[in-house]
């Protein structure tokens, strides 16, 4: 499974919603993600990609679209 598909699977599990969204579209503005699902998404990303996301990186904008999440994961190597 490629990373994009894995991200969509994670979002589906966290939000219990079907994810049909362009990579650059806002997950918040589209109604997929809300304030209380965001911490669960961050925890799921940590678990799935075996990374520790420091509190200093907990800016909601970093996780606002599939593209931004991928950019963040890229920045983490």
């Amino acid at each position, binding site marked *: 499974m490629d990373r994009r598909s894995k991200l969509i699977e994670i979002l589906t599990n966290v939000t219990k919603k079907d994810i049909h969204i362009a990579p650059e579209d806002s997950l*918040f503005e589209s109604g997929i993600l809300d*304030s*209380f699902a*965001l*911490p669960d998404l*961050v925890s799921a990303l940590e678990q799935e990609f075996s990374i520790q996301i420091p*509190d*200093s990186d*907990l*800016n*909601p904008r970093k996780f606002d679209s599939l593209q931004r999440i991928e950019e963040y994961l890229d920045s983490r190597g």
Partner: protein
Amino acid sequence: MAFIKEFGCWLPRRTVTSEEAGAWVGSDAEWVKNVSGIEERRFADETDTVADLAARAGSDCLERAGVEAKDLGMILLASGTGGRAFPGPACSAARLLGAEGVPALDIPIASAGSLFALSLASRLAAQLGPILVIGAEIMSRIVLREPRERGVAVLFGDGAGACLVTPDSGRAEIIDSVLASDGTYAEDLMLENGAPLKMNGRSVILQASRKIPAAIRAVLERHSIEPAAVQVFLMHQANQNLLDKIAATLGVPAERFFSNIRRYGNTSSASLLIAACEWFRAEGFRPGAPAVFAAFGAGFHWGALLARGAGA
């Protein structure tokens, strides 16, 4: 050593339902309840000041403790809605309490203010004697400012809580506390003079949902206590969904987190002590059992405090 001797609280009579508050922002009571757990909140009279509310909660606490205001070593008043840059409401509250000459210090950091004040009191009581900690807010005058934002206006209420911390004996011993501040996101939750409250709810919830459980775990681990062994978690009442999320993160039943947010909304720095007061009167500390206080708010400031029921 320091002990919690007594709690006090005071709530305004006027009740504002979530149906009424929701209408301000084009929503209904069901939406307000779903996003926050709040069904109603109290609003103070137009003539009331933060110092008035603080003095009423403080008097309630002192009367129950049988302690006179003149015998206090210090008053610490947490409030983010004092209404002017200086002096803050602490000196006025002290005057209303009859605590002439007692040093009275403001802690204007909003939601985490009462927790910080409790922690400071526990460290100062041995030198200064009994310390009255108060949290008092009139949030209604903030949320009613235009423009009323959907994610802000419906959340807050008014009230005051108090706690008497003494150096010798009490209902629970304050064992330890952890406090922290990080100004990185200071602008994500702030109140500028005369302006509406500005809150980035996503940032606040994301940070709080990580930092509060971490602070609780940190203070418990210092004393080899598992979260499951804690009698009660007394929290800043910010949002029921957040309380439930923190309980799940710590792996304890949500019922262990005392909640009265349904009736009072978020009363900022007052909420922790109002919650503690109501819980204490309904249940009270079990001898030897750990109890945790925790809060997170503007700054960001956050932390957790560990107490243990006296008399084991």
